[in-house]
């Protein structure tokens, strides 16, 4: 599904990612963990196509295609979804209309018929319940006046409606209390399937108690220093990141 090869990325002339290699297959959940400033968010943003990141070497293949040559909206149509670390508030753009326009843009791209308002609402209703999205939140402007937890829930709700092939969750657990964390994790778990890959970027192991990954990678200083199974996350929780760095340096 996703194949990252020797990826080097610079921001304003400073190299942030220094040779990332990562293979993610359909059906898998990967966790990318690491200390602050290790390049986790850079990786998520490069995958989603944000401006200002220069790929100096390496390649990203998504379903065999060069992802880097596609603009963000085409990546979205191809099934890439980024759940933002800091979802932006967009006053005046209605939450529901945006989601309907997004879904229909993706459907058009795939040659499917667009959904009208009735079919669309029928589709979103169940997902609203799973993520405890109230009618009130739905009818507001995108993320406007949402609490931190509501914003994160809205991201996962959008993901549940758009049903991406590759979902990138950038620090989705930050700022969530334990109840919100459970709701969000439940939403993500309901989307696990054999056709979908999920990459969870996180600083803490906490989220991984609820979303159990197939693979865990430690990103530090722009490189993946160690990869392992779910146990690696637990070990990081107990021992911190330093021992990985020391082991890598040795």
């Amino acid at each position: 599904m996703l194949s990252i090869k020797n990826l080097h990325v610079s921001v304003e002339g400073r190299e942030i990612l220094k040779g990332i290699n990562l293979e993610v297959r359909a059906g898998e959940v990967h966790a990318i963990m690491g200390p602050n400033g290790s390049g986790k968010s850079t990786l998520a943003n490069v995958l989603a196509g944000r401006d200002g990141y220069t790929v100096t070497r390496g390649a990203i293949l998504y379903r065999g295609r060069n992802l880097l040559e596609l603009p963000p909206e085409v990546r979205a149509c191809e099934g890439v979804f980024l759940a933002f670390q800091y979802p932006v508030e967009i006053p005046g753009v209605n939450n529901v209309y945006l989601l309907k326009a997004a879904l229909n843009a993706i459907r058009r791209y795939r040659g499917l018929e667009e959904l009208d308002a009735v079919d669309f609402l029928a589709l979103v209703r169940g997902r609203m319940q799973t993520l405890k999205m109230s009618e009130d939140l739905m009818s507001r402007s995108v993320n406007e006046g949402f609490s931190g937890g509501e914003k994160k829930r809205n991201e996962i709700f959008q993901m549940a409606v758009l049903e991406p092939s590759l979902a990138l969750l950038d620090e989705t657990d930050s700022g969530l209390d334990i109840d919100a964390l459970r709701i969000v994790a439940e939403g993500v778990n309901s989307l696990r399937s054999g056709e979908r890959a999920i990459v969870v970027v996180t600083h803490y192991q906490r989220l991984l108690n609820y979303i159990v990954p197939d693979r865990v990678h430690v990103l530090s200083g722009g490189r993946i220093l160690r990869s392992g199974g779910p146990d690696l996350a637990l070990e990081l929780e107990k021992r911190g990141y330093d021992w990985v760095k020391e082991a890598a340096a040795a």
Partner: protein
Amino acid sequence: MTEPAAQAFLEEFERDPGRLDWLAPERRAAIEIYRKLGLPNPRQESWKYTDVRLLTRRRFRAASLAPAAAASAAASGHGYGSEDCHEIVFVNGRLSAGNEALPAPSGARIRSLAEAAGTEPARVTEQLGRHAADDGRAFVALNTALMSDGAVIDIAPGTDSQKPLHLLHHCAPGNAPAAVYTRNLVTVGANARATLIETYTGVAGSEYFMNTVTEIELGPGAALEYYRVQQESLAAFHVGSLAVRQERASRFHSFSIDLGGLLVRNDVDVRLAAGGADARLDGLYIAVDRQHVDNHTRIDHEQPQTRSVENYRGILDGRARAVFNGKVVVHKNAQKTDAQQSNANLLLSSNAEVDTKPELEIYADDVKCGHGATVGRLDEDMLFYLRTRAIPEATARNLLTFAFADEIIRPMPCRMVRDRLEHSVARTLPGAAVIGEFMQ
């Protein structure tokens, strides 16, 4: 001093001194004021960025009566219909139907200025120019001297008018550049509530000069919701003055929308003349190509515990230019004044320009005043967010631009104005069809 254009307006006065002859003394006094002032020029601080010399290159003659067909065309194209409002149509500055056809809602008296000047001159002269002071305002003086008609509206104390009043001013000038001068006088009695809409339109592409003055007086506890929708021809000159005086605990909420006109200047003066008076001024201007739109507002907090909130937004594309000058004066004994002002501008082109200037003069010491002005482009984070949600870049830009304007329109309590404006604004901006998908 008299420059050719200024001279042309004087000649206009000489040519037709007979109109509204009950008001001859007032008109003669006004033309003398104008003769002294001449047209404003860029050396005057309040006209620094708006050069009206363009006006002088045209020979505007008083508009002639338009055929009745123009009136019905205007009403059907821009009216809201008598189901939803009391509508009064002026074409080329004159009441389009006879006085007997004017709406007569209970609790309100509506007549044309031309009629009132003859039958109740005292009513007219009492308010005329009392608030829209002639001194220093050449265009107001010119209006007083040359006005042809307008509406005189008195809402009786305690009236709760459900249906809005709509004054539709339409220009159909024919081939020669025409000038139109309209004057509206409005009083809202104690504890009365009303909604007044003024729409300014003209035949597309036609060239004319609309000079309009509206004077409003709000009695104690009165509340007026006021909409001014300027959608003149894109070749038109529009100079508008609004003067409002508010008594104790009265509330005035104005929405000032500028979408049309080649050169537009609006002067708004609000006097909070008694305690507890509350004014809220919202504004939106959208200018493209070579449109020029200038909004000058002045709010006087004359008494304690008065409040004003002002929020103007602008969108500029092409080589358009906008001016915003928001003056707030807090008088010496106006303690506990609360005055907030904001002006935000969105520039869609590197050739567009905006000059924005807040002006606070505070002579009291226990007040709360704030102001902020921004000039910027579309937010990159918002654009990226929308694109990750499969919205193409051009659509995302159009959508954010519309949303920026809609922040002023969406809160409008009057639904028929709001709905129509959302569509008008969407049509003004690129990508109208796509924006529509988000508006349903």
